[in-house]
C-alpha cells in the first residue's frame, strides 16, 4: 500500500486475466422505470430504522454478495454516520467479536446472513426467533425489507460490474 491518500483515482491495479472491469451496462439509464422503483423500494425499506444499524446490515450483505461498488458506498456512509474503524474492520467476523456489537445488532446481522445466503438454506427458527426477540414486529418487517433491498442493489452492482466510487 503505497498510495493511501488517493484510494480511487491513484489506484489502477492491472485487470486480472479474463476478468474485465468497468461497467458492463448502464442499467439505470437503460431501465429508468426500474431505477425509479428501486429508489422507492430503498426509501420505504429504511423508514424508521437507525442509520448505524442500516449501514451495518448493508455492509454485511454486500460482503457476502461481494459487491465492491456497494461496499465502497456503505463503508463511506457508515463513517459519515460516525461508525468506528474498529467495528467496520470486525464486521466480517462479528460473531467472534464479542463486546463490539450489541445483542440487537447481532440479531440483525444473523438475520442478514440467513436471508442473503438463501440458496444454501432457509432462515432457521433460531435466527428468526432471535430477531423477533430483539425487534418488535413492525421494526422486524422493516429490517427484512432492508435486507431484501440491499440484496437487490448487490445483484445490480455485481452483475453489471459497477466500479467502486463511480456513479
Amino acid at each position, binding site marked *: 500500500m503505497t498510495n493511501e491518500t488517493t484510494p480511487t483515482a491513484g489506484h489502477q491495479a492491472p485487470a486480472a486475466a479474463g476478468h474485465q472491469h468497468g461497467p458492463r451496462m448502464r442499467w439505470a439509464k437503460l431501465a429508468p422505470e426500474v431505477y425509479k422503483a428501486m429508489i422507492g423500494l430503498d426509501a420505504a425499506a429504511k423508514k424508521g430504522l437507525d442509520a448505524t444499524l442500516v449501514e451495518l446490515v448493508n455492509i454485511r450483505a454486500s460482503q457476502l454478495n461481494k459487491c465492491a461498488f456497494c461496499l465502497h458506498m456503505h463503508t463511506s456512509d457508515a463513517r459519515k454516520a460516525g461508525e468506528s474503524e474498529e467495528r467496520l474492520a470486525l464486521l466480517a467476523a462479528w460473531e467472534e467479536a464479542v463486546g463490539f456489537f450489541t445483542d440487537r445488532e447481532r440479531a440483525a446481522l444473523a438475520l442478514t446472513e440467513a436471508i442473503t445466503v438463501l*440458496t444454501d438454506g432457509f*432462515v432457521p427458527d433460531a435466527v428468526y426467533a432471535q430477531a423477533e426477540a430483539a425487534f418488535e414486529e413492525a421494526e*422486524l*418487517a422493516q429490517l427484512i425489507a432492508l435486507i431484501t433491498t440491499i*440484496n437487490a442493489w448487490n445483484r445490480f452492482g455485481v*452483475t453489471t460490474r459497477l466500479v467502486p466510487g463511480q456513479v
Partner: protein
Amino acid sequence: MSHRMTFWSKVPAFYQAQLKLTMAAKKGLGDAVLAELVVLRASQLNKCAFCVDMHVTNLRAAGVEAQRIDLLPAWEEAGDLYSERERAALAFTEAVTVLTEGHVPDEVYERAAAQFDEAELAHLLAVIVAINNWNRVNVTVRQPPGAEL
C-alpha cells in the same frame, strides 16, 4: 412450518414499490412466458414454495406445456426443449441468483448479451432481481403457498 408474519400489509410503501419494480421489469422485457420461466427458476433455487406455486400456476394458465414446466430444474440437460434465448436467460438467472457462491461469469453474461439487446438485458436483470426480492421475503416469513399476500 407456520406462517411467521403477515409481512406485506405491514410495509405498504415497500409493497407498492416492489409491485412497480416487478411491473416495470416485465414490461421492459416484453416476453411474458420467458419472464415466468425465469422467475420460476429463481424461486426453485431460493426454495420459495409460495412463489413456485404461483409461477407454475401462471405458466399452466399461459398454456406452456407440462414438460417445459416439469423439466425446468434440469433445463441444461433437456435437449432442445428450451430455445437458446431461453437457455441464455436461465443461465443468467442462475448466476445472478446464486450470488454468494460466485460472480456472474463472462461467458454467462456474454451468452445473454448475444440473445438480448442492452435494454432487454437490463430488464431481464431487473426481472431476476425483483423475483429474488419476492423470494427473500416470502421464504423469510414462510408465506404459505396459495395464501393471500
